């Protein structure tokens, strides 16, 4: 908006009278076009406009006398006038940002987003040092920029509480608990404990917004990556573990007394798996674009849900362990996982994953492969069911489904089927004669 003022029409002229307005409000005006006639005691003259634009206001009426310099009219210039910058021509660094801010909100939205994700070095450094998720900090700087003061003032919610109820539901007290869709390969680093600020504040009434913790973000990333990279195929077999169930029933009390840990089904399943892997080493491999790397070592990943994280520790050289040894290893890893004492070595190097999804009563799962492994096996719930036997009689047997997701780049139906059959056979052969050691 530009003003036209009463000009000084002579050396000693101090005021002037508007004789006649030549333009009305709403008229468009070009630069130097006369807009009013002025009379003074010395001279009559026309006042030209100094700007191109539209006359938006007349401030002094005809026949009114005003002093030199008094604003007479307002002209809205064509195009937005750039905000006048400080006159020395020197530039404060925030000038471009200030210009954006001074524009009448036109460019706000795209600029806002641009500034919102531009983090200064100190903001990045501090948020890393303090383990703050930078995306969660509200910016008080220009156009929503997160400033150093914002980071200093940031207060996360109670530490350790996981976002949402989903993870809490997955906790299992005694047993090695797992998750329906296995394989989150999250490092159990203590410093990564999710900082979860209060989720509310911006959510509308019928919604609850759960903040995404660092762990969840990692899980999400890994799951997506795995599914995107490996073409997942899936296979399932039913296994009759009635003799195995009897074995466990018989041994578990004495085992607990002797070893001090529970004898669950998992060690048995892992033992059968490991032996089958020895027979079909291709299942224990990795796709490497121009080659398939078949691993000679058998490190079995198992998923463990702890209070505030999901971890997948690894039983190293699982083929060297007996059932009892596996039970120990599982128990020890689970304990360390829950107390946050897992080392990086504990969670690295797995070559095949076994997941106990049956802990929730699931009888069928489609697990996501724990990249870069080639396959993952889930052990579903053991269910007592009527089954038709070989001699056409019907009996109640303990049946369990074993589900396997496989990377179809490395494996195909034939190998996988053979592998699963091998696992099944071994499990069905486990009975009261089987040694735990």
């Amino acid at each position: 908006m530009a003003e036209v003022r009463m000009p000084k029409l002579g050396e000693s002229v101090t005021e002037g009278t508007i004789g006649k307005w030549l333009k009305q409000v709403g008229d468009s005006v070009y630069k130097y076009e006369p807009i009013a006639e002025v009379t003074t005691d010395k001279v009559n003259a026309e006042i030209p406009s100094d700007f191109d634009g539209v006359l938006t206001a007349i401030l002094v009426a005809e026949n009114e006398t005003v002093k030199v310099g008094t604003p007479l009219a307002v002209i809205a210039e064509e195009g937005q006038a750039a905000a006048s910058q400080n006159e020395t021509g020197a530039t404060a660094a925030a000038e471009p940002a200030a210009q954006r801010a001074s524009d009448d909100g036109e460019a706000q939205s795209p600029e806002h987003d641009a500034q919102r994700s531009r983090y200064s070095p100190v903001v990045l450094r501090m948020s890393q040092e303090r383990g703050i998720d930078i995306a969660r900090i509200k910016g008080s700087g220009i156009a929503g920029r997160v400033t150093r003061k914002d980071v200093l003032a940031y207060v996360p919610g109670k530490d350790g509480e996981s976002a949402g109820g989903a993870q809490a539901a997955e906790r299992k007290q005694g047993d090695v608990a797992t998750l329906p869709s296995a394989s989150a390969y999250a490092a159990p680093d203590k410093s990564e404990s999710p900082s979860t600020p209060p989720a509310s504040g911006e959510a509308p009434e019928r919604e609850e917004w759960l903040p995404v913790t660092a762990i969840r973000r990692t899980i999400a990333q890994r799951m997506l990556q795995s599914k995107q990279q490996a073409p997942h195929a899936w296979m399932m077999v039913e296994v009759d573990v009635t003799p195995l169930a009897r074995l466990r029933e018989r041994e578990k009390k004495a085992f607990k007394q002797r070893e001090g840990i529970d004898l669950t089904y998992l060690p048995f399943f892992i033992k059968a798996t490991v032996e089958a892997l020895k027979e079909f080493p291709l299942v224990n491999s990795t796709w490497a674009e121009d080659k398939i790397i078949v691993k000679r070592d058998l490190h079995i990943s198992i998923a463990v849900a702890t209070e505030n994280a999901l971890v997948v520790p690894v039983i190293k050289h699982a083929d060297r362990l007996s059932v009892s040894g596996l039970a120990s290893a599982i128990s020890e890893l689970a304990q360390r996982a829950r107390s946050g004492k897992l080392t990086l070595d504990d969670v690295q190097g797995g070559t095949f994953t076994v997941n106990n999804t049956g802990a929730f009563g699931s009888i069928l799962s489609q697990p996501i492969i724990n990249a870069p492994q080639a396959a993952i096996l889930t052990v579903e719930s053991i269910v007592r069911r009527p089954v038709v036997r070989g001699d056409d009689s019907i009996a109640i047997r303990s049946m369990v489904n074993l589900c396997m997701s496989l990377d179809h780049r490395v494996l195909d139906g034939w190998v996988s089927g053979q592998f699963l059959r091998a696992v099944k056979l071994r499990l069905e052969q486990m009975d009261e004669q089987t040694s735990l050691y």
Partner: protein
Amino acid sequence: MTVKLYIDAIRDAIQEEMRRDDSVFVLGEDVGVRGGVFRVTQGLIEEFGESRIMDTPLAESAIAGVAIGAAAYGLKPIAEIQFADFIMPAVNQIISEASKMRYRSNNDWHCPLVIRAPYGGGVHGALYHSQSLEALFYHVPGLKIVMPATAADAKGLLISAIRDPDPVLFFEHKGLYRLVKDDVPDGEHTVPIGIAATRRQGTDITVITYGLMVHHAMEAAQELESEGVSTELLDLRTVAPLDREAIVSAARKTGKVLIVHEDNKTGGVGAEVSAIIAEEALFDLDAPIARLCGPDIPAMPFSPPQERFYMLDPDKIAAAMRQLAAF
């Protein structure tokens, strides 16, 4: 402690050192009989005589050259260049001779020279009585440059300069002579060369400046305080060598830095301060380093509105500070 004018503090420093040390003497145009065109050396010729308060011909090259020679000979000259703008004929002596003396003689010779020169504008001095010239010299190894903003620092830095065994340029802002007065310690008072002074502690933005601009920046900082912006203000005091530690520490404190000086922007002291901060404190910066300086125009116009355009003032500084604080 006595409240003294900037100009009186300078005179006191000269007088006290001349009394203390016979080898100290003053030379320059109109310093003796006239007492200096600004009256800095008034009364001194009466006390010390014309051999120690020496009126020279109008020949800056000679003023500097004679002083350098005297210094090499063991005397302690305080050479005055009547206006910093006139220092140009003396540049060869200062840069080619004074700055290199110790280095080229491998410590056999040194040059305990002080060159005093009033600098700065806003006094309708136009092109030859308003310039800031520190940028020409701070680049030269072997020269120290001090630019006090307060009367106490003027006395303390001048005494330190006189006692310094190597050449020191003492730029005194002519606009501060009678504008500024503050508490000056009586008697012996030295301020170490190369150490900056924190004038104001703050947490939101850092302003680094020197000379007259220190006072303008203080005023701006006070205004901003009432708007909720807390300013850390660092007075460099010495422009060569720069107090790197103080600069980096002040920058780190807030992450937002505004460097202010009256001198032209390009290649000014602000450029070096900015580079130091960028080199040593990148991961503490919350905003690009800002410089508010004199425009790249010959300093400075005679026409009053143009001189006002050129000179920085508290309003301009406050505006730049606000922008930085909001970033």
